[in-house]
Structures are given as structure tokens and as C-alpha cells.
């Protein structure tokens, strides 16, 4: 029993954090909002060079062969900077899904290109209605009416839908089922959808942790600097408690996320409800962080001018991404209220 990350994992997190905080600044985010694609090829190239695009790609296909647990801290850091590029999606959803399809030719075709940065692949599930980053994908893996298809970029029609979070690029995607490559249908398709959804939900949860932490940091800084009634507003107890409430809840949202990552990486039978627990509480704490942060910012928090809104909007958007709270609570309820559920002391790590 060891509930800690390894030295290597923590060092990797640190170096990715340093890189992201330097490269993905509020200024660069605002600049990207002004561009057509909203995505930076240069940044993606840097990810390639750092090995991040291939992090979950097997070594045989040119990647680092890491798993969901190795990546979860990096996803958290991506949330911390509200990263727009689909790095987390690629590593946590697209790559594992391609492998899970079990078609070695298909995997061989795409995984090396993902690792090398030549191709981007996105997965579009019906639970999300729209497909994020469809406009920059070379291949789309799409759920449609009980089956899963692989469709290349040229074969889809996209309808852009603006999100309140300008860092997210969402598209309604249409394609000709008859002309598409069917990856799976029936039970296998269902399993693949759950597989991808669990990883998408984990990705959202991990990013939500980072977003929450960022809002804490921004708000602590703001309330330390900002004076009112002659003192720093951060010295008011009500302001302190708004912040403390985020901070202590965040501590109890992190471990469910890490446990969910572990359960996915080790294909535990508890993985689905572990993921749902993680998704619910991580998004709740990010939501609370948004609420309390805007409140302690006062009117400044309501503006486009301070950076807070970048992260608030990401938190709001993550809420219902890869399953609403209701969707996930329902999965938890199915477990908790089942007659077979092992509850109570000593069963936390019963797989």
C-alpha cells in the first residue's frame, strides 16, 4: 500500500508546470482567443519535443508508454494554465482509445504520428453533444447511434459553436456513416464508449483540480494586494473563510482523482464509480472556487480585465463535460445502493 506519487512522477509534474506557467500565460491565452483556430502549432511542437504528445503511446510506437496515473498530475497542471491545446485529451482519451480498439493496423497507423506530432486525433462522444477541437483533428473517432467510427478530417462537416470559454472550440460534426470506417458496434462499441468516457471524465476532473488551485492563487494574491477600508481585504475573516473553504475541499477532491487514475491504469472493476466520484467532487470544488473567487474580487472579478474569468469559465465548462453531475451521481448510486456493494471500513481498496 502506497498512496504517494514516485519521485519521477513528481519531478515530471514540476518540469511540466514550470514549462506551462512560462509558456501559457493569461496574455498568450488572450492572444490565442483572437486567432481563427485558437491553437498554437508552435506550442504543440514544443510538446512533441518534450515527449508529451507520445507520453501514453507505447514505446514500440515511438512513445513513452506511460499510463493514466503517470499523466494525471500533468493534466492537473494543464488545468492550472487553462491549456487550450488538446494535449490532455490526446494522451488520456485518444491514445488509450485507439489502443483499446484492438486493431493493430489501426494503432500502427496513428499512434506513431500522434507521438511525432504529425497527427492529432480527437474522440467525440454523444455525452458531450459537440466535439472539441474537431477543427484541428486529422482523425476523429466518433460515436454515433451505438457504433464507433474513425473518420478522417476531409470527411466531416463542422459547425462551430462558441463556448463561454473562448479557449474551448466546439463543433457539431456531421459525417456519412456509410463512407466511414466502423471501429466497433454492439457491446464492443458500448464498452469502448465507457472506456473513453471514463478517461475523458478523469481528464476533466484532473484539470478541474488545477483550475481550482489557480483561482485560489489568483484570489489570494488579489486580496493580499487590494486594500479597502484601509487594510488588505484578505485580512477580513469572511474573505479568508471563502478561500479556506476552497482549499480544504480541494484536498479531499485530489485523492479521489488520483485513486480514479490508479483504477483506470490498473483496470480495476471499481474504476467507473471511482471516476464518477472524482468527477463530481473535482468539478464541485472548481465551481466553488469560481464562486468564492469572484466574490472576493468584488466588481473586478466581474470584468474581462482581470485574469480570473479565464479560469472561472473553464471551471463552468468542465462541469458538464464528459457527463453531468447527475450522470456521475447516477453511476455512483448504482454502486452504492446495490446489494453487492462492499461499504464501510476496510473496503476502500477492495477492487
Amino acid at each position, binding site marked *: 500500500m502506497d498512496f504517494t506519487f514516485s519521485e519521477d512522477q513528481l519531478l515530471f509534474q514540476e518540469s511540466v508546470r514550470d514549462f506551462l506557467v512560462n509558456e501559457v500565460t493569461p496574455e498568450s491565452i488572450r492572444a490565442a482567443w483572437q486567432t481563427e483556430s485558437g491553437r498554437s502549432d508552435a506550442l504543440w511542437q514544443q510538446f512533441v519535443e518534450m515527449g508529451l504528445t507520445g507520453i501514453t503511446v507505447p514505446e514500440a510506437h515511438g512513445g513513452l508508454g506511460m499510463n493514466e496515473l503517470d499523466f494525471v498530475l500533468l493534466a492537473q497542471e494543464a488545468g492550472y494554465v487553462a491549456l487550450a491545446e488538446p494535449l490532455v485529451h490526446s494522451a488520456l482519451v485518444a491514445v488509450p482509445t485507439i489502443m483499446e480498439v484492438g486493431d493493430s493496423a489501426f494503432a500502427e497507423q496513428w499512434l506513431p504520428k500522434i507521438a511525432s506530432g504529425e497527427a492529432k486525433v480527437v474522440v467525440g462522444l454523444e*455525452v*458531450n*453533444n*459537440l466535439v472539441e477541437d474537431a477543427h484541428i483533428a486529422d482523425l476523429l473517432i466518433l460515436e454515433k447511434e451505438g457504433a464507433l467510427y474513425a473518420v478522417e478530417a476531409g470527411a466531416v462537416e463542422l*459547425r*462551430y*459553436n*462558441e*463556448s*463561454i*470559454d473562448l479557449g*474551448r472550440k*466546439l463543433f*457539431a460534426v456531421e459525417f456519412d456513416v456509410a463512407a466511414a470506417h466502423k471501429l466497433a458496434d454492439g457491446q464492443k462499441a458500448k464498452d469502448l464508449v465507457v472506456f473513453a468516457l471514463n478517461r475523458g471524465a478523469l481528464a476533466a476532473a484532473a484539470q478541474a483540480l488545477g483550475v481550482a488551485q489557480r483561482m485560489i492563487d489568483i484570489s489570494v494574491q488579489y486580496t493580499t494586494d487590494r*486594500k*479597502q*477600508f484601509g487594510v488588505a481585504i484578505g485580512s*477580513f475573516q*469572511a*474573505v479568508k473563510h471563502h478561500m479556506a473553504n476552497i482549499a480544504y475541499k480541494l484536498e479531499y477532491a485530489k485523492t479521489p482523482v488520483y485513486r480514479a487514475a490508479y483504477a483506470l491504469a490498473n483496470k480495476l472493476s471499481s474504476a467507473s464509480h471511482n471516476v464518477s466520484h472524482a468527477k463530481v467532487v473535482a468539478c464541485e470544488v472548481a465551481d466553488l472556487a469560481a*464562486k468564492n473567487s*469572484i*466574490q472576493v474580487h*468584488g*466588481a473586478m*472579478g*466581474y*470584468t*474581462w*480585465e482581470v485574469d480570473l*474569468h479565464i479560469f472561472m*469559465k473553464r471551471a*463552468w*465548462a468542465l*462541469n*458538464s*463535460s464528459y457527463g*453531468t*453531475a*447527475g*450522470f456521475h*451521481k*447516477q453511476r455512483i448510486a448504482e454502486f452504492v445502493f446495490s446489494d453487492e456493494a462492499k461499504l464501510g471500513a476496510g473496503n476502500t481498496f477492495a477492487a
Partner: protein
Amino acid sequence: MKLEYTPEQTAFRAEVRAWLAANVPAEPLKSFDTEEGFQQHREWEAKLYEGRWGMITWPEEMGGRGADLLQWLIFEEEYYAARAPLRVNQNGIFLLGPTLMEYGTDEQKKRFLNGMATGKDIWCQGWSEPNAGSDMAAIRSTATLSEDGSHYIINGQKTWSTRAVWADWCFGMFRTDPASERHKGLTFILVPLESEGITVRPIPQLDGLPGFAEIFFDNVKVPVDCRLGGEGEGWSVAMATAGFERGLMLRSPARFQETAKRLVNLYKANQESADQDPAVRDAVLRAYMDAEAYALTTYQTACRLMQGGKIGAEASTNKIFWSELDQQMHGLGLKILGARAELVPHAPDAGEVGSWLDGWLFSQSGPIYAGTNEIQRNIIAERLLGMPRK
């Protein structure tokens, strides 16, 4: 206690309803945080004025109907039920108007009230300053009386001025006694925004639209007859305005009851997915109850005021209650809408999301403006409950 409308009140409601049915634009106006929408709303104010529905609580001789508070509540109920446009000139007619009637000279009343009523002059507030947000007594912008006493020279900066970008006039407080501190030495002055030396810098709000602005004053000359009340009496004049603002005129129960109703309908239309989260059904019921309670308490307050009572800590309890309710209801709407909820209104697949997202963004300002809810809670504790200040 008699919780039934009189025949006169019922007839009044019918009259309002009929006029609105005939006059409310079929298509919603554009947001008044856009230039085009602002002009549309200005025209709507003129139309309301024509029907004598613009400021029904004003005296008849000023274009109103001398309506009492209960008629006001009835009017608002019909207004919101008809989904009539938001009031672009609410700062003028609800805040400055009553203050002018109390503190203005006859000449000032004649000069300003009509333009305000017709929508010709749209007013914005000049209260907050960069270092005087919730702490209004920290105002530092100055107004210096010219040697001949004919005008003030204004210098400084105001901020969070709602709809200042396209407004015509600003009312606010300025420090006329440079040696004064806190609440003293402040004067209430009305400033035309087209004056030389004024720069209005729009502040984009959460939705990216310039819903408010900073106003910079660089040696702005304003005639002395634009002063409201005496020199140095600004604080008491302003407090009257703030009282109105926090009071019941601006936050009709109607608004929240209509949101609660739409929420019930949204829930019913999406019940299967919504019920996956049992907290949703509970929160919808709570929205109904809270909106109802807000209406009940507002009616009680209105009746008390009509019988000669005064608004006390109700201003603070009221502010907390509606602003947190508004936030909860819109957050709940987004929750029910699920994955679509992040789409902006003009996104092609947004469907009914738009008004909920707009409402959600707008609701974020409720617990902040006009005294944060933390300050309101302090006020309740200290003034209503008598707890120790320090």
C-alpha cells in the same frame, strides 16, 4: 391582513396587461450593452413614456401616475410576465429621479425629470472609484468651485459606472473640501458626459460587452446649478439614493418568480436527465419557495411602507436573499441544460441555453454590487442584531 387585490388593483393590472400585450416588441431587443441595443431600449423608454408607463410611481404632473407601491409591484408583475425589455434608464428614473424630487430645486426638477422620463437623457452613476468600491467614503475625485462661484472644476476618476458607455449624463459624488475626510466634504453633482475633459473607457464584463465603464475627469467644467443639495451635503443626498437602490423598487419579486417558473418548466421538460441528480429536484422546489417568499416579504414591506413604516435592515436582508437566489436559480438552469450550458446564445446549437447563460453571468454581479453580501451581513449583525463592531 387581507391577501386579495381590491377591484381597483385588479382593474389596474388589466390595464397594464392590455397595454403591454399591445406594445411589447414581438422580437426581444438586442442587449443594451451593445450600441444598437442601447438605442432600441432608449426608444422603448420613449414608448413607455407615451403610454405613461415609464415611471408610474412619479407624480402625475411629472408624467407619472402617482402609483403606490402595491401598484408598482402589480405593474412589475405584468411587465416581467410579458417579458418586456429591461429598463435602460433605471439609474435615472428609480435612483436619481426620486432623489431629484427630494433634493432638487424647482428648476432642476423641470430641467432633468422630463428628459429622464422620455429616455432622451440616459443617466449613469458615478459612485465608485478605483480605491473606493464598497467603501464609498474613500472618494478622492475632486470638484473645485471656481473663484466666481459659477462652476466646479472636476478632476479624478470614477469606475463601475453601469451603461456609462452610451449614457448622456452622470450623477455622482466629488470631494469639494480637499481637507475633508471620509463622509464629510462631499458634494453631489450632475455631469453631462459630453463635457470637455471627460474620457469614458469601457470595461468589458464577463460576457465581453462593455456593460460598465471608467470615467476620467480632466478639468471638467460643470455649472454650479448642476449641484444637487448643498455643498458638502453629498453624503446624505447619496445615502437617500443608495437606500432606494437597495430597497424594493429595483428588485421586483416578479423577476425572480418568472425565473423560478421558467426553471420549473425547464425541469419538467428535461425531467429524466435532471432527475439523475436528486439535488436538482430539491433545488427547483427551493427556487419556487424562495421566489414565493421573496414576493411575500416584499408585499409585506410595501404594505408597511404605505402605512408609514421605514426601510431598515430589510435593505440588507433583501439584497442577500434575491442576489443569492438569482445565482442559484441560473446555476441550476445550467445544470439542467448539461453539456449545452456552456454555449453562448448565438451558437447555432445553443437552443434555449442563451437566456440561462446570460442570466447566470449577470447573476454573478448580484452578490457584489451595491455593497457586497459580506458587507450586508456585517450590517445585519451590527445594526439589526446589535453585535459589537470591534
